[in-house]
């Protein structure tokens, strides 16, 4: 049962990154590929009705993590107190910049929110990557089941690493390139005209960056946490996941010219999802590994709550997912197709 919940939590987090990832990417790119107010409005309109729903996957995923593994939730959230506070500030500024931008016509007002939108999206992409880096590398968990992660120490990995060290920053940069490319492919699919061409050009350059940073990050992971690859090789789906990651990566340039505009974006979705799945399979059954003593690590059995909770929860989760997937299909269908500035986030 704990394993099922581990998969559920990983699945929800991966869905979050895939969905909110494209609107982070749109935020990173819009300053560079959208020059006029109309172009910027079309970028915002492409994500406007969707970003809030995308972000709910983070909240719901966090809720499900708390539900299935309360000790990992409380250790992780209190240990990353300051970085999470800053994540909150970024999420607040980002949400406000999307919603407030269109409410005033002044160019100064709009430029200001464009800047906020770019900065918060870019930093969030890096932070998400760094967070993943921290989970892979491990944190200085103490015997009490808590840890205190300083923002940075000497940027070296070791027994008492900071939240930011060379490895987590590298993963952060990789995530930045990955989500920017993801957003570029999304905008290429949603927009028309010159801005679409610029999004397509950005996607090509970013693909190169993704490959280079991806190879570097994979190599670095082998140095920092070799056990991930051992688990992956030992596990039942290891080779399949590795194959799926490579196949998704290759599918992006292969489908880019011939197939429809949706195909490379879907390949990019698959790439993010399979990379996260491979990471989860490599980390399993650990949730948060201790850099001090492996015995202090939190895993799926010592971090779960016990009682009937996990058993009754599964029914709720399945019911909720069926309904939610229905909502999302309906939502994406209603706002599907190319962006039309006549309605919605215009004005």
């Amino acid at each position, binding site marked *: 049962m704990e394993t099922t919940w581990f998969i559920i939590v990983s699945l929800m987090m991966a869905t979050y990154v895939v969905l909110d990832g494209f609107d982070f990417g749109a935020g990173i790119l819009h300053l560079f590929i959208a020059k006029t107010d109309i172009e910027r409005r079309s970028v915002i309109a492409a994500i406007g009705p969707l970003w809030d729903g995308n972000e709910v996957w983070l909240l719901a995923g966090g809720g499900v993590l708390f539900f299935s593994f309360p000790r990992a939730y409380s250790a992780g959230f*209190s240990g990353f107190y300051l970085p999470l506070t800053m994540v909150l500030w970024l999420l607040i500024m980002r949400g406000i910049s999307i919603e407030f931008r269109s*409410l005033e016509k002044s160019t100064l007002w709009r430029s200001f929110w464009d800047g906020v939108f770019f900065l918060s999206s870019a930093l969030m992409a890096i932070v998400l990557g760094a967070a993943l880096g921290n989970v892979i590398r491990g944190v200085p968990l103490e015997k009490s089941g808590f840890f205190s992660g300083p923002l940075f120490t000497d940027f070296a990995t070791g027994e008492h690493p900071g939240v930011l060290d060379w490895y987590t920053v590298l993963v952060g940069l990789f995530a930045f390139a990955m989500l920017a490319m993801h957003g570029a492919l999304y905008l290429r699919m949603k927009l028309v005209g010159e801005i679409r061409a610029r999004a397509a050009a950005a996607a090509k350059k970013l693909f190169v960056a993704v490959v280079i940073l991806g190879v570097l990050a994979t190599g670095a992971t082998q140095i920092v946490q070799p056990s991930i690859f051992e688990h992956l090789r030992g596990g039942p789906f290891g080779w399949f996941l590795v194959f799926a990651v490579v196949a998704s990566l290759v599918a992006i340039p292969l489908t880019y010219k011939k197939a429809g505009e949706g195909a490379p974006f879907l390949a990019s979705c698959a790439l993010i999802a399979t990379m996260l799945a491979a990471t989860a399979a490599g980390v399993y059954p650990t949730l948060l590994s201790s850099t001090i003593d492996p015995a202090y690590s939190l895993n799926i059995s010592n971090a779960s709550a016990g009682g009937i909770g996990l058993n009754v929860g599964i029914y709720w989760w399945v019911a909720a997912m069926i309904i939610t997937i229905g909502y999302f299909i*309906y939502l994406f269908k209603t706002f599907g197709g190319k962006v039309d500035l006549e309605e919605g986030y215009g004005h």
Partner: protein
Amino acid sequence: MDAVSWNRFQFGFLITYHYLFPQLTMGLALIILILKILAIRKQDERYDSAAQFWAKIFGINFAVGVVTGIPMEFQFGTNWAQFSNFAGGVISLTLALEGLFAFFAESAFLGLFLYGRKRLGPKLHLFSAFMVFAGSWLSGYFIIATNAFMQHPVGYEIGKSGALQLADMWAYLLNPWAIWQYLHNMTAAVITGSFVVCAVGAYYILSDRHNEVARKFTTVGVVTGLIACIIILFPTGDQHGKMMAKYQPAALAAMEGKFETSDKAEMALIGQPDIVNRKLDNPLVVPYVLSFLAYGSFGAEVKGMNDMPKDELPDNIELLYYGYHIMVGLGTIFILLMVTAAIKLKRNTLFSSRYLLWILMFAFPFPYIATTFGWMTAELGRQPWTVYGLQRTVHASSPLVSGGSIAFSSLGFMGLYLVMGVLFLYLIGKQIAGGPPEAEGTLAEAA
């Protein structure tokens, strides 16, 4: 100040600020739904124009509510990690359910509701308005059920590690405390919504603008406001008070400023609690009333704080006492105001009673104040416990987070929220200055 005090300060600030927004969105969600139904039923475009106007205000409010709500979900882990370890096996169920059932519905249909009016057509647009309403009200229930467990824990067992775990799911979800607290709280949200809608209507009528639609605002506002103001007192407030008497007698005694145990117990209308000398200064009291309200009998004995162990009394008796009295005092004034307005509305004299319109225009901040103090009563009354009778607040915070870190993040939040509050007021002011959209069809606005 120690780390626990900083944590309490931060929680108090973040939740007070956050809840200014959902209380309006939950109340407005119902009123917008009523306006949309009236528009279809009566085939009157002025109602649709009114609904569109409020949907804009709703959207801005909702956005601020969402972004200030994200920190609340994080706080369980960041600031109150020991509480999350101890009670997480139970309370995480409702938090997860809130995300899975309420947030998804709200967020998906909010986009459809705000930006899909033309794509959806009237029926589906009404449905999206209903789903936003249902999602936000469901969200309210899950959060109140979580809080109700902290006020009155049920449905749990103590596991091997000493932490709580879920033993009876339905007992937990249908906690009687949750049901009464929910009804009381949602009624309060409707009052906030009604007063805001009334106030904007009164403002337009007094400044002779958008008269037609403004009258719809005030009419709908007064009717929903009157109903809600009665329900807030009876049965919801009354039942909530009786539960406090039964399960949290220390909180009840502190709320009422009652130091001495007595039968035929009096209710203090005014007075200042003097904690050092353990008495109420300058009291103005009505005998028998407290006994009756708490236990349904005029002679019942009500225990005073002097006969309770000191370490089980709330730690901020003064604020608790004033919080409760401000809530009840304002609630009483709301009933008088809404009854007067409703009588005038029935006699068709409301829109010519300029003095009453002035009062309605300036009355809208007070439901916010009453609701805030109501929640302060609930949360201060629960002290010194985080989970009543099971875990003390001093044992609930994150052990390794320093007071300095919490102070830093608190100050950052205060700065960010200040800027956001100013921008919010500016944008709402702009919407109100712009007024409702002209009715599009044949029924062009007469004024």
